[in-house]
């Protein structure tokens, strides 16, 4: 069953902020090469789970295993080197860097050490790291913004730049925190196309998302959190039919079947 062995496993992970139990005895597994959604009401602890996986906060209890390797105690700046890259709920691009430079920030974990840091990326026009970053922007259809100051760009474009930046780390596991939040339908479609393209390469993706259409179109597995505990997991269809999930998250029983976007079948 090597195809279904988990790339990421959380074992009895807990995180408390003062008296607030944000994540409580959480066990979850993300299957390799599968797109998994993490859903749940506001305050369920979804972003905290991301922050624990990426090491923004230490866990209070439990273990985090990536490909069987215990990374619970790994410093946060080394975790991207283990193959975990992420995007952020609110766009966190570097406002004083151009689009291209922001994308090159994503390459940093592959350029640690003195020689990597002294790569003349802004001096030699044909520098291979610079060219690789430009190629990624061309692929994503964002090359026209190459030299723009990121703060002036439309929100949807900034979200896609953030995604390109995360991919430059060549992660094994990509964490996306509400990638479609705040996007208009056209931007959501562009993002979805970009994600489909990325996922076709077999990258494992864990995504926090509220848009159930988006989740249904993109993800094969769904994990539902509530008050820091896992209350359900399964395929999007299973989750939609789960009465407990309907009650606390989806609201009224859902009448219409979840749409499968055409891009999925491609």
């Amino acid at each position: 069953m090597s195809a279904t062995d988990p790339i990421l496993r959380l074992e009895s992970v807990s995180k408390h902020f003062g008296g607030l139990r944000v994540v409580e005895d959480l066990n979850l597994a993300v299957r390799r090469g599968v797109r998994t959604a993490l859903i749940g009401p506001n305050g369920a602890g979804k972003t905290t789970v991301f922050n624990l996986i990426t090491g923004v906060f230490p866990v209070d209890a439990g273990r985090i295993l990536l490909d069987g390797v215990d990374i619970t105690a790994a410093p946060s700046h080394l975790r991207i080197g283990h193959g975990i890259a992420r995007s952020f709920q609110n766009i966190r691009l570097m406002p004083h860097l151009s689009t291209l430079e922001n994308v090159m920030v994503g390459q940093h974990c592959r350029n640690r050490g003195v020689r990597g840091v002294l790569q003349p990326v802004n001096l030699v026009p044909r520098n291979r790291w610079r060219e690789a970053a430009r190629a990624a922007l061309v692929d994503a259809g964002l090359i026209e913004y190459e030299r723009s100051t990121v703060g002036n760009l439309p929100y949807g474009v900034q979200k896609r730049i953030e995604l390109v930046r995360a991919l430059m780390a060549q992660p094994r596991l990509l964490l996306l925190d509400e990638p479609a939040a705040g996007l208009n339908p056209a931007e959501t479609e562009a993002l979805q196309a970009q994600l489909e393209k990325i996922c076709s390469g077999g990258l494992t993706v864990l995504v926090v998302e509220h848009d159930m259409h988006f989740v249904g179109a993109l993800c094969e597995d769904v994990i539902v959190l509530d008050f820091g505990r896992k209350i359900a997991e399964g395929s999007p269809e299973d989750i939609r039919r789960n009465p407990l999930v309907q009650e606390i998250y989806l609201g009224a029983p859902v009448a219409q079947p979840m749409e499968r976007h055409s891009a999925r079948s491609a």
Partner: protein
Amino acid sequence: MSGYLEGVLVLLAVNVVFAYGGFLPLAAGQLNLGLAGFAAIGAYASAYLSNVFKLPPLVAIVFAGIVAGVVALIVAVPVLRTRGIYLALATFALGQIVQAIILNLEVVGGAAGYPVAAFIRLPAIAATATVVVALVWLLFATRFGIAVTAVHDDETVADLMGIDVRAFQVAAFALGSAIAGVGGGLYAHHFSFIEAQYFNISLSITIVLYVLLGGTQTVIGPLLGAAVFTLLPEVLRASANWRYVAFAAALIVLMALRPEGLVTGAQLRRLLGLARAQPRHAAVAAALPKEPSG
């Protein structure tokens, strides 16, 4: 060249070097108010090396820069644990400590000051300043420049992107201190006499102002800031006693008009004709379907 003009240009070159000493930590988001202390370490170390060991002045100055950088590396461990206003206060205290130590160090003259036998003129000083500017410019054209700016902009995300935030902060602090040390060495070998009182907090603040007014985002900013700061008081000399008032007023106007400094990254990209960015409204308009005409 008149003595006056040479004096002004030497001061300009020394101030430019100082400005880059302030620029490195500021580019990484740290306010170092102890720069005068590192300039003093450089001045005294180079003077001692050329007076006692008879090293050529420029060699002594390079060594002095290394000494200042090593001292900075050592103190960086406790000092850079603080942040924001506390970091400013800790570095300020550091400058005071250096000053106090020198005042009590009889081997370099203590409070009486320290004469420097060797003498260098404008060409050597200007050449050294040019090398410093070129090296900083080269350094910021590498991934180092991107990483330091990333640390300045968002420490959390820089960390998650694999950037060792602390290592870059320490490196920027130590390199900046080494450069300030070189500036101190240049100063010592031109003015032939140094005293601890010169390297006071107002020197540190002046250096930081060069950078903040010139702009912390581009390598050209500190150069411009130091030039404006050094030359403006000279230009205003005609107004005699009022020149510092006029100067201060000009500074306040500058800060109000250009809060991010004279030169910003975005502006530089625009000026160089490199920006292909459309303004937001234009980008949106282009994406909208055309209205049917008539």
